[in-house]
């Protein structure tokens, strides 16, 4: 954080309140049991960046918002996990299957959220978790795919993410995904829109500073799907990307398209080592 020292000085002179944009040092323990990794060393591939430590977006939120995520009863995202559970057991499509028909209990999904997006050998493509869910629906269930950023998709992602809660994100960046990962990195550093902002301008160069009235985090996606207080629902990664790109006043890429898939892979890899938090709670 280049401007941190400056901010601190300004804060001393002008008003102590300004320093509030800095992340805090709280520890996240969910239900008084599961301790989460919310700060960790930067992965190898980020050694040439200005980021000195990975930090979950949770550290950039107020104590009240943080507390919501530390108790499953208080976490509004858990309502959607319940809905996801109902979907899990619902038979749909021409094959007469539900998710449970093949995968039995959702606990069989343990570890899945931590490694996605990942290479699918049969399809010969990088698949996000959402793409895999829809592939399962269309190919194995004969059902209609969920809308990529829709509520049902978010519910299902939340249910699956919850099974991996606390496990460190560990997406592959090499091997067959290397090309797509490079494409994602390219997108991350490409300025878009009338404001000419890249992801890195805010989330690498200026995390910890304010953007108007809000705190800039590192833009980590380990907490997705995320319950946002501003829209009172679960938000998916690509919907969030779309919002961010739109805010640069650019034409956005299509959620579920190859650009956002590549970006998701790259951004996920920037969080390698942080705990899976989904469903997290943010502003």
């Amino acid at each position, binding site marked *: 954080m280049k401007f941190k020292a400056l901010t601190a000085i300004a804060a001393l002179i002008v008003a102590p309140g300004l320093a509030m944009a800095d992340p805090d040092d709280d520890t996240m323990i969910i239900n008084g049991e599961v301790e989460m990794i919310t700060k960790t060393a930067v992965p190898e591939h980020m050694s040439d960046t200005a980021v000195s430590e990975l930090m979950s977006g949770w550290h950039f939120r107020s104590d009240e918002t943080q507390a919501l995520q530390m108790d499953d*009863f*208080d976490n*509004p995202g858990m*309502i959607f996990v*319940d*809905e996801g559970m109902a979907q899990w057991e619902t038979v749909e499509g021409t094959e007469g299957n539900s998710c449970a028909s093949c995968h039995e209990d959702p606990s069989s999904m343990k570890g899945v959220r931590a490694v996605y997006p990942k290479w699918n050998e049969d399809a010969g493509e990088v698949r996000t978790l959402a793409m895999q869910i829809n592939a399962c629906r269309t190919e194995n269930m004969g059902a209609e795919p969920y809308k990529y950023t829709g509520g049902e998709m978010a519910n299902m992602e939340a249910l699956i993410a919850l099974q991996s809660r606390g496990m460190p994100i560990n997406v592959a960046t090499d091997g067959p995904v290397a090309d797509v990962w490079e494409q994602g990195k390219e997108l991350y550093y490409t300025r878009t829109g009338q404001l000419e902002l890249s992801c890195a301008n805010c989330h690498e160069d200026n995390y910890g500073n304010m953007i108007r009235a809000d705190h800039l985090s590192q833009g980590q996606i380990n907490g997705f799907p995320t319950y946002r207080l501003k829209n*009172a629902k679960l938000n998916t990664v690509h919907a969030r990307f779309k919002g961010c790109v739109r805010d640069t006043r650019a034409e956005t890429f299509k959620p579920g398209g190859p650009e956002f898939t590549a970006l998701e892979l790259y951004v996920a890899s920037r969080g390698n080592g942080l705990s899976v938090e989904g469903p997290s709670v943010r502003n």
Partner: protein
Amino acid sequence: MAKGVRPRVKVPKSASAGDVITIKCLISHKMESGQRKDKDGNKIPRSIINNFTCTFNGETVIDVKMEPAISTNPYFEFDAKVPESGEFKFVWNDDDGSVYEETKAIEAA
């Protein structure tokens, strides 16, 4: 009955007699205010939970009249004194006449 309604309550399983405990209640409900219009301009009819009560062994702990400005998935947290072992009963009344109920037993030592 509104879709996807499910009450959730968190009450400690035991307490010392005379203790004050914290109770948390959440019910998933869309809480349609009646102020909104659909995309054709027709008014979306009001559909909210208009009343919430909690009783302990028949005695009222809290009785809340709810209005349309209350947000979706209404959440209540309050304290209650537990003089003896017994049962908390929670009741939500929907505009459409549905009644959602939940009970939690507590052991007072």
